[in-house]
Structures are given as structure tokens and as C-alpha cells.
């Protein structure tokens, strides 16, 4: 399969994620949408690392390894994990205080 | 489109293989329940099932049919969709794991060289971990969807236990990987056929893996999610009919598959020791290999049962402490020592 399918899929996932973040009000769902965005990026990176002509060109001309994007994905996973732990902790903390994960509650801060 | 240029012969071949393997694993799982009861009876000096058919051999079939025709009850307060999804997922993951296990070397049939492995992928171990980790969703979703306090409690316990033991399980394999240098199960078996079984190099790794496998399958002494005397019956107590059947079945399939994986990783897979397969015709060699492999698996299954009916159940804190504070550091130490030794010998 050629790369555009992967890129298009990743772009779709990413857009779904962004749309979710912007429209949903439930903190957990927003959070999941963010994770979706990250995974879309992972997919795109992996696709590029295998199939992007630019990557191939750099690899042949610069003598760099083509696996750097795959490595990057690992780091994204790590960071995502760290974010998950912190983010869930924050959401749980908030749930314990206001018994809701609806971010409309956040508007309270404005007053 | 690449899909159109596909080798349809290969697809049919794989389809047949899949059908055989899945059916085999289902049958083996079914008879594992029978075996379990027989072993239990034997250990407790009883007879076990003996009414249905000779030696009660038709008992699992009868059990299965009974479950199949039972009334299905979905509690009012539950989440219907998730309630159905839970056991389906459990069954699904159990059925998916066997895809990367090499059941034997190739056979030659109709001028085709057929690999006795559904998918020979180069990241087989990662695939197994990925699918096995999905298993926890089956438990969690089922327990949560039931909307029963006992179920939920059991599911939480189960989930915690499964994920806790996944860490040492992953770590224990790293030392092994350092020796073999590949994530492909097929290659791993090949190295073992050429050299020695990995159990000789990695006894501690195997021990950890084995303990974790017990915990992953929620087998005694780690069957906390099903602790009857604390939690009625566990995460599936609201289930009935085939949904319950799926949960129970999944457990036995998991047991079978983990035995297969252990045999593959540490005991040479379909390798028969002291036998030079190259002197035999491929088909005969393959049959012998499969037989050897199944034998190894059955031994493991027996060990599983043996342990279940021998050891008392762990307390929850003991379970967690063993996993986190015992196995993880042990696996790390194993990793470091293996690395140092291998590098030293390499010099």
C-alpha cells in the first residue's frame, strides 16, 4: 500500500481527536481524544519512516538511520504514559472534589 | 491494489490452518476442563466425572451443551452492550493469541510448503503481549457492566493483578531476548533446535515467566478475582449461559496458549531432543514435532492443575507484593546478570 493511505488515515484520526477536544465537555473523553491525536501522530511517523521519499533521500545522502521516527514513537509513548498518569491523577482529584468530570464546571474560575 | 494481487492459495491454506488450530485449541480447552476435574479428583482421591460416556469422556461436551442452551440473563441495571462485549472480548483475545505460535515445522502437501504457523511475524513476542494485555479488558468490562459490587470488586482485583504481573513477565523475557536476539518465535525455536533449550540459559527467567503466566490466567494460587469465599463467584457472577461459558472457556484456552508459549520460548517448541529431523521426511518430522510440542503443552497444563489443587490461595497484599517487590527486582537482576555474563563470554 502506498503512503497516502496511512497519511490520510492518520490525518483523519488526528482531526477526529482535535474535533473531540474542541467539542466534548467530558474531561475523560477530551483526554481520550488527545491520546487519539498522539496515536495518529505515531501512525504518521511510522508511515513516513518507512515510506517517505524525503526520508529515503536524506538517508541516502546523509547516511542517517531511517529508524529515527520509530524511535520517536517510543518517546511519544513514554510521554503519553507520563501524561496519562498525571492527567488521570488530576481528573481523579477533581472528581473527588466536585463529583463530576464535566469541564463546564471550570467556568467557575472566570468569576 | 495489493489486495487484488494476493496469493489466494495462501489465503485458503491459512484459512484451513486457522480452522484446524482454533478447533484444536477449543477441543483441548474443553478437555482441559475434564482433565482438571480428573486431576482434582485424582489428587483428592476421588473419581471425578465418570457418567457421561466412557470414563466420563463426554462430560465436557455435556457441560458445553448445557451452557449453550441455558437461559441468558442480563441484569436490569447493567450496561447491556458492555455486558455482552465483556465475554466476547475475553474469548476473542484468547482465540487470537495462537496466531503466532509455531506448532511445528513445515509440511509439504499438494506441492506447497505449508508452514505450521498462522503468521510468522518478526515481532511475535510483542504481538502476544499486545493481545494478552487486551484480555484485561474482558474482565474489566464484564465486571463493570454487571453493576454488581462483587463483580466490580473482583474485576478491579483481576485487572490490578493482571497488569501487575505483566511487568515482570515482560522483564523476564528481556534476558531471553538478549540471548536469542530476535522477537520472532520461529527464529527462537530454530536457535533452540540448533543449540540448547533456553531453559538451560534462563532458569530464573522461566520461573518468573511461569509465575506470571499463572497470574495472567487467573489460576490458583493467584485466582483472587474468583475467590468464591470473598466475592461470591468473581467478576462473572452475573453471567449465565454461553457468556459464562466464554469466560470459563477463555481461561482454559489461555492456559493452553501460555503453556504453548512457555514450551516455545524455553523448551524448544516442537523440538525433539536428540533427534535429527533432517534425516526424516518433512511431513513425518512435522508430525513428530507437533506431537512433541503437544506433549510439552500437556505437561505444563498438568503442572498448572497440579499447582491449583496443591497450593492455597494468596492473600491480596501477598500477591501484589510478590509481583511488584519480588518478581520485578528479580527480573531486573536476571537481566543485568545475563547481560554481563553474555558480554563477558562474548569477549
Amino acid at each position, binding site marked *: 500500500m502506498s503512503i497516502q493511505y496511512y497519511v490520510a488515515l492518520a490525518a483523519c484520526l488526528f482531526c477526529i481527536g482535535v474535533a473531540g477536544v474542541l467539542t466534548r465537555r467530558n474531561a475523560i473523553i477530551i483526554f481520550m481524544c488527545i491520546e487519539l491525536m498522539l496515536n495518529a501522530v505515531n501512525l504518521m511517523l511510522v508511515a513516513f519512516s518507512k515510506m517517505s521519499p524525503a526520508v*529515503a533521500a536524506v538517508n541516502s545522502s546523509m547516511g542517517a538511520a531511517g529508524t529515527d521516527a520509530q524511535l520517536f514513537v517510543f518517546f511519544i509513548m513514554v510521554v503519553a504514559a507520563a501524561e496519562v498518569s498525571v492527567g488521570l491523577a488530576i481528573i481523579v482529584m477533581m472528581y473527588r472534589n466536585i463529583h463530576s468530570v464535566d469541564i463546564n464546571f471550570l467556568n467557575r474560575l472566570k468569576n | 491494489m495489493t489486495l487484488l494481487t494476493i496469493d489466494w492459495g495462501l489465503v485458503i491454506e491459512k484459512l484451513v490452518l486457522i480452522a484446524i488450530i482454533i478447533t484444536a485449541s477449543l477441543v483441548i480447552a474443553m478437555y482441559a476442563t475434564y482433565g482438571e476435574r480428573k486431576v482434582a479428583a485424582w489428587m483428592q482421591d476421588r473419581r471425578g466425572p465418570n457418567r457421561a460416556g466412557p470414563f466420563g469422556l463426554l462430560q465436557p461436551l455435556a457441560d458445553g451443551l448445557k451452557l449453550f442452551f441455558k437461559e441468558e440473563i442480563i441484569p436490569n441495571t447493567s450496561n447491556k452492550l458492555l455486558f455482552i462485549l465483556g465475554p466476547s472480548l475475553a474469548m476473542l483475545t484468547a482465540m487470537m493469541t495462537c496466531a503466532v505460535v509455531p506448532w511445528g515445522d513445515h509440511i509439504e502437501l499438494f506441492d506447497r510448503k505449508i508452514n505450521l504457523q498462522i503468521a510468522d511475524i518478526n515481532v511475535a513476542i510483542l504481538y502476544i503481549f499486545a493481545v494478552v494485555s487486551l484480555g484485561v479488558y474482558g474482565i474489566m468490562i464484564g465486571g463493570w457492566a454487571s453493576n454488581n459490587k462483587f463483580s466490580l470488586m473482583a474485576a478491579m482485583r483481576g485487572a490490578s493483578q493482571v497488569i501487575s504481573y505483566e511487568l515482570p513477565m515482560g522483564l523476564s523475557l528481556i534476558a531471553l531476548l538478549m540471548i536469542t536476539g530476535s522477537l520472532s518465535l520461529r527464529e527462537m525455536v530454530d536457535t533452540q533446535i540448533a543449540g540448547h533449550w533456553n531453559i538451560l540459559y534462563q532458569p530464573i527467567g522461566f520461573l518468573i515467566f511461569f509465575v506470571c503466566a499463572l497470574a495472567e490466567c487467573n489460576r490458583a494460587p493467584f485466582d483472587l478475582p474468583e475467590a468464591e469465599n470473598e466475592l461470591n463467584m468473581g467478576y462473572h457472577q452475573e453471567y449465565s449461559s454461553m457468556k459464562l461459558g466464554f469466560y470459563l472457556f477463555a481461561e482454559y484456552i489461555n492456559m493452553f496458549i501460555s503453556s504453548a508459549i512457555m514450551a516455545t520460548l524455553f523448551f524448544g517448541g516442537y523440538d525433539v531432543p536428540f533427534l535429527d529431523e533432517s534425516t526424516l521426511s518433512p511431513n513425518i518430522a512435522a508430525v513428530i514435532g507437533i506431537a512433541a510440542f503437544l506433549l510439552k503443552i500437556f505437561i505444563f497444563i498438568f503442572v498448572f492443575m497440579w499447582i491449583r489443587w496443591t497450593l492455597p490461595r494468596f492473600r491480596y497484599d501477598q500477591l501484589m507484593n510478590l509481583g511488584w517487590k519480588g518478581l520485578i527486582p528479580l527480573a531486573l537482576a536476571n537481566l543485568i546478570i545475563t547481560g554481563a555474563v553474555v558480554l563477558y563470554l562474548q569477549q
Partner: protein
Amino acid sequence: MSIPYFLLDTQATGTTSDYLPIAIQLIFAVGFVATMMVLTHMFGPKRKTKDKLETFASGIETHGDARQPMAIKYFLVAILFVLFDVEVIFFYPYAVNFKSLGWTGFVEILLFVGFFLVGFIYIIKRGALKWED
């Protein structure tokens, strides 16, 4: 600006075909599970009563919803799992290339294990894994 790159066709693809059997198996498994579910639904008797449809609590009345906050410990375990599991992932590429990396790689992985242990000891010291209370 000329045509963006990603619209062009690319080099040889990877080993997607290796995964085809897995997809077949997935279809197979899903089909099996779904069929069984449907069949058992059709064949089973349907005599529902109120008592049957209530959640089971060993015979006593059920009290309220089960979806209440659980002990934070379970949550903590889940989070720690996520963190450490990701750390474990990092060992895999190393393990596969372990022999070619030699002693330098070993020293680096020792450092990594050191970091792992620092976090590990910290959470144990903090009592995140204390279940005996």
C-alpha cells in the same frame, strides 16, 4: 509549489502481507464469537422474572449502584503499570540489538535500569504499593 510529496507513490512497502493471516484469524474469531452469541440467544429459554433480573448479592437486597469510587490503590497500580510498562518497552529494542551494542550499550542500559530503580524505590518508599492498611 509543486505537488505535495505524500500524494506521490512510494517505495516498496513493508511486510504487511505477514499480517494478513492475523486479519483472517481475527475475522474468523469474531465470526465464531458472534455466531455463538446469537445462537445461544436464540436457543436459550426466555422466562424473565423480576428477581432474575436483579443483581445478585448472595440473596440479600442490593444496595444502590455499584459504580462508586473505589479504593485509590487500584487506580495507583494502573498508573504505575502504565509508567513502568512503557519503561519496559524500552528494553526490547535494546535486548534485540544487545550483542552488537556491546559494553557501551550495557553501561547505558545500566543507567537506564538505575533510573528505573530510582522511580521504583521511590514509589515503594512512598507507600504506593502498600496494601496492608
